[in-house]
């Protein structure tokens, strides 16, 4: 990194070659994209039913009319999503720690955790939703809220917590035992080693799968409409009755995408920034390969 460095003829040639290569790559990508888009537009717009489909699904006027109702429904989805995410993350992590702990007194709790995870990962979400939505109120528990949003959220939470617990468990098991050995060798207790050494690494190792679970949870929050909660999907459904114009569904779909796509990108960027510290890579192995 000396200051007087002037690129040699060779270095300039290489740089010029790389620039030319880069320009060509951009051109190829642009042409390929244009061709594919043109093909899609051609196929769709020449389809015999296109005129009617456009009216029924993509009516701008209808979209504008229903936007407030659908957006208000989406607000419910978002609230269910945030609450279920936070509670699911906390309980999922706790269950994973419980399942990997070796404290004898916790043996029954461990067994229950295994049973819970097996059952809720094995049963379709839809079924859990129906059982919780119609089964729990039948018990007539005074203290239990019976709103469709609450019961639907609870059902989704039960399913997703089981998945999150499994993901966190795989994260805990991915931390090499030599890390625990190093921590214990320093005199840390088992609990300290788990809290300060294993869990931070475990959580980093699974940020990507956990994040994709949360994105998928955001989407599945729409299932509460089955129990009658007026979320984005239910609002769209109500709006379609009568005129058989399905534009509201498209509006709901676009709104879901407007949330989930930026969310995915955000999480990718975040875990790219965090994740590289998750594991020890050799210094020489971390470069960019041509």
């Amino acid at each position, binding site marked *: 990194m000396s200051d007087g460095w002037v690129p040699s003829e060779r270095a300039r040639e290489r740089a010029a070659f790389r620039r030319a290569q880069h320009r060509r790559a951009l051109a190829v990508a642009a042409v390929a994209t244009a061709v594919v888009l043109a093909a899609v537009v051609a196929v769709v717009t020449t389809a015999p039913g296109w005129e009617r489909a456009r009216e029924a699904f993509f009516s701008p006027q209808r979209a504008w009319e229903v936007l407030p109702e659908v957006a208000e429904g989406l607000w419910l989805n978002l609230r269910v999503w945030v609450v279920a995410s936070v509670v699911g993350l906390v309980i999922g992590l706790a269950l994973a720690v419980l399942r990997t702990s070796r404290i004898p007194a916790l043996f029954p709790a461990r067994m229950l955790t295994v049973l819970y995870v097996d059952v809720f990962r094995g049963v379709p979400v839809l079924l859990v939703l129906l059982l919780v939505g119609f089964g729990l109120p039948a018990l007539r528990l005074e203290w239990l809220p019976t709103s469709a949003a609450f019961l639907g959220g609870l059902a989704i939470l039960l399913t997703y917590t089981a998945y999150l617990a499994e993901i966190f468990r795989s994260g805990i098991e991915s931390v090499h035992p*030599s*890390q625990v*050995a*190093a*921590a*214990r*060798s*320093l*005199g*840390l*207790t088992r609990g*300290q080693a788990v809290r*300060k*050494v294993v869990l*931070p*690494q475990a959580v*980093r190792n699974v940020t990507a799968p956990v994040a994709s679970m949360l994105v998928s949870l955001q989407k599945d929050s729409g299932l509460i409409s089955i129990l009658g909660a007026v979320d984005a999907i239910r609002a769209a459904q109500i709006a379609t009755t009568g005129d058989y114009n399905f534009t509201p569904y498209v509006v709901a779909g676009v709104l879901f995408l407007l949330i989930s796509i930026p969310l995915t990108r955000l999480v990718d960027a975040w875990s790219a920034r965090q994740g*590289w*510290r*998750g*594991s*020890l*890579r050799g*210094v020489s192995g*971390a470069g960019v390969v041509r």
Partner: protein
Amino acid sequence: MIARPTPDGPAPLLRLRDVRKTFPTGPGRRAGRRTVLDGIDLDVDEHRCVVLVGSSGSGKSTLLRVVDLLEDVDDGQVLLDGVDVADPWVDADAVRARLAMVFQSYNLFPHLSVLDNVTLAPRLVHRRPRSDAEDAGRQMLARVGLADKAASYPDQLSGGEQQRAAIARALVGGPELLLLDEVTSALDPELVGEVLDLLLDLRAEGTTMLVATHEMDFARQVADEVVFLHDGRVHERGTPAEVLDAPQRERTREFLRRLR
């Protein structure tokens, strides 16, 4: 029980008596067991440095792990200050807090900065306030030549720097017994010289050491006693001059010949 320090001569800090350790040869309950330590007797006197040598797989790392209570023994005694710490009712965390180990593969914590790696035990185990622990940590890092790497993460260090960070992490608590597993394997000759000086200083300050190494020059300079392990047993022991320069037994000679 075991005799306490004798008036003349150094006191034995660590004694191994007839230590046996086996590992399963494979997964499952029907797997056989392979004997790695087959009745080891070993004394490490206070302020002394004992060096373990032996071919790869001879059990050097296993022996260090047994002393650090990271492995249970099948039989025998691990006496630290006369107390058999292999007994399961002994508080192993308290014992480990008195010892320190530098691992062959460093085992730094990748999610913590170098300084946090070094100060983790002082803060959690010795309950020192953070500022106090960080002062001690920075001093120790300066001592191993890593003063400017305190804020770096382990994966941003070269192999030799990681090794020295691991040494700093082990030393910062002022251990009574330092267990070193191949601490010079990733260092160039210049750094080996520096680590050697550091170890000699430490010994002069009273730290007791048990060291496993493949480098006979290093062993020659740092050891008070050299112990050659073979077939799970102590095959030959003595001063560096005795064992490394005038070995008595054929297997030791062969081992040293192969190294050249």
